[in-house]
């Protein structure tokens, strides 16, 4: 538990691509609430190098020392996805708060175990993507609740994953192309968090998928020159029915559901247009899911107006906001907005999408997600303030 009154003491576990691209370069921005006291990597070399670069005294190979250290309050779990659940569980059992990169665990059922473990121990568990506190999502939510769009009938979103080989990627990309991952898990979670957060939870999914390549040669990073087999479909298209019940606050009059299309792939270039669009009776709202620097785009017919949104990071996803959120919640005792329920809900949607694509039928998302609906509504309330 927290011992220092002022700053949360973090151990960073995992120093691969996402850590070095999206988290560590921005750690100074949360120095008022958190300090990194230890850096851990799968091997020790990269951890040592990163620790030296950041001026952090301690580094270690593996995650055990981070979990067991008395002077660590929270674990920042930036490991490769297959290690997420193990590190998360070990950290929680050792009494550490946790910020986990997505997904929390390989399945919704496993994620629920983690949620319950955290709740049982009175620990804070925050899961990426913290997209609902990204500034453009906060601004989008304000447009939705203002009523300017009118009832929202339909939406579409694109999750950009990039075509392999990912030039400049500094870790081994092969885990992203295994059967249990692929673009759905890696990037599909962004539109799903956004749409469920803005429109209400996903109730039904129908999906198709395809595999556009068998393998690719890695050109950068430690796996350079190796051939990665593509074991998972790399082209996904989902159609969702989202929405709240009639008695709840809803974007649609009378509790009617919104339908939305969601694309997630590792086989196409980034779209030139907005990554997400909400189609209301009176207008359309477009925004980017990841790039915090992209303006909102609004249209009530022909032509668009742009609305700039204040942002701290120059461009790209501002994941450090989620870590700040963890630190602020732990230090103040505040209930986290980014608690695990939306992440669990998204895992359920992913499982439904896989079943739909495999079996050729529409799949209902378990009603247990009604809890996520409630939580999402809370996120929306507080994020909008």
């Amino acid at each position, binding site marked *: 538990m927290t011992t220092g009154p002022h700053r949360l003491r973090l151990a960073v576990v995992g120093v691969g691509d996402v850590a070095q691209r999206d988290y560590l370069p921005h750690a100074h921005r949360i120095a008022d609430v958190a300090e990194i006291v230890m850096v851990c990597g799968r091997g020790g070399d990269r951890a040592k190098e990163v620790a030296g670069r950041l001026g952090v005294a301690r580094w270690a190979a593996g995650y055990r020392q981070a979990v067991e250290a008395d002077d660590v309050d929270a674990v920042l779990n930036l490991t490769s996805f297959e290690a997420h659940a193990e590190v998360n569980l070990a950290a929680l059992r050792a009494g550490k708060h946790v910020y986990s990169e997505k997904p929390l665990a390989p399945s919704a059922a496993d994620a629920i175990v983690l949620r319950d473990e955290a709740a049982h121990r009175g620990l804070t568990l925050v899961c990426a993507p913290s997209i609902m506190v990204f500034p453009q999502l906060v601004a989008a939510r304000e447009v939705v609740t203002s009523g300017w769009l009118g009832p929202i009938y*339909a939406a579409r979103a694109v999750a950009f994953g990039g075509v392999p080989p990912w030039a400049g990627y500094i870790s081994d990309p092969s885990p992203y192309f295994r059967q249990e991952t692929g673009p759905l898990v890696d990037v599909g979670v962004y539109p799903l968090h956004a749409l469920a957060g803005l429109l209400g939870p996903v109730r039904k999914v129908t999906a198709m998928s395809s595999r556009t390549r068998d393998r690719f040669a890695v050109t950068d990073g430690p796996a350079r020159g190796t051939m990665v087999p593509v074991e998972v479909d790399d082209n996904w*298209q989902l159609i969702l029915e989202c929405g709240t019940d009639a008695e709840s606050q809803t974007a649609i009059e009378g509790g009617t559901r919104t339908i939305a299309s969601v*694309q997630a*792939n590792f086989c196409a270039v980034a779209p030139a247009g907005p990554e997400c669009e909400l*189609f209301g009776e009176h207008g*359309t709202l477009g925004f980017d899911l990841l790039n915090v620097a992209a303006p909102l785009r609004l249209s009530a017919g022909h032509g668009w107006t742009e609305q700039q949104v204040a942002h701290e990071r120059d461009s790209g996803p501002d994941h450090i906001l989620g870590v700040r959120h963890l630190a602020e919640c732990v230090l103040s005792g505040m209930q986290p907005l980014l608690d695990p329920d939306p992440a669990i809900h998204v895992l359920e949607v992913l499982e439904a999408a896989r079943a739909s694509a495999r079996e050729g039928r529409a799949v209902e998302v378990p009603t247990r997600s009604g809890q996520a609906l409630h939580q999402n509504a809370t996120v929306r309330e507080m994020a909008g303030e």
Partner: protein
Amino acid sequence: MSDVVRLGVVGAGALTQRAILPHLTQEDVHDSVQVRAVCDPVAERAEDVARRFGVPRVFSRVGDLVSAGEADAVTIASPIGLHSEHGRLALEAGLHVHFNKTMSTTVDEADVLIDTAAARGLKIVASPGEGLRPQLRRTRQLIEQGAIGKLSWAVCGVAFGRYHESEEPERLQPRAGGPIDPSWYFRRPGGGPMYDMAAYALHGLTSVLGAARRVTALSGKVLPLRQFMGRTVSVDVDDNTIVLLEMADDALAVVHGTAAGTILEDFGAACYFGTEGEIRGLLLNGEPFDFPGRELTLDAPTWDWEAQMRVLPHVVGPHRHIPESHVFEDIMQLVDAIRYGTPTPVTAQQARHVIDIIESAYRAAETGVRQEIRTVFHLPAVGL
């Protein structure tokens, strides 16, 4: 050269008044096609329209029109749910047929029309002739040439918003016969944005990528009531549908046909995404791409649908200034086919395939089960 094609017009509603008769009564087509009759169950409307456009004969029943010996061909501009029946009557009477979209609402109906025409040696042209447009032919060529790498997915779609209730001038300025009732757009069979607006997107998509193989969809109704000139119209058809298609070569496509929501401002246009680039309407990786006749469109924004149609082969002279010239083009495709035997890419087989997609999508949404698309059509070589 064959004689002038004598044409009957089935339906004297908004499209006939706005486009079909204004185009076909221009001097420049008198040597190839002449409108000899117009038919509408609202007799005063048919008579008023005939008087205004100089059409010699007026009928109130399609059966009477097609058996009167006044026409070699008809254009079907009745409500979509009646297209199949009216087209069948014409074919059985030995007349060639142009269908405004969509040709029918079911594959079974489309089969009957195609078989009847074949058995009698008659020609069908079924709008919308998106495959004629140089813009889409060039799009297809760019994709086939690898301009965006390997195609991964596409998205398109069109919403009808409140167009039919509150934006069509012919309905809002009623003449003889009273207001032109749009209620059928919200009723079965044939109502909803899929058969209406999204048909353009589907014809465009399949003109670029060829036939779809499988389909799934989610669909619902969001506006139970609509208003037309102070009257309430109840909606008994889905008005909010998203369709997911499996295309050839591992590509996926999604089609929005919803009460609100325009995928691109360019009507019916699509985005195509590949491993190395994107085509977004008339932009290749953000830059306009060239196509035959593009210079004719440059004084208007790309969302100006009418301006984009100036590039069609028959849309010359006065036709560039009359609305819905794509409908005129499709009718002239039939006229040329009758007179010269000229083949056209605006085929009944492609229309049937689009109808198959829509009908199967609704079935998938209703049953929750992905559907196989059983119809195919031949996509002619690009030949720009």
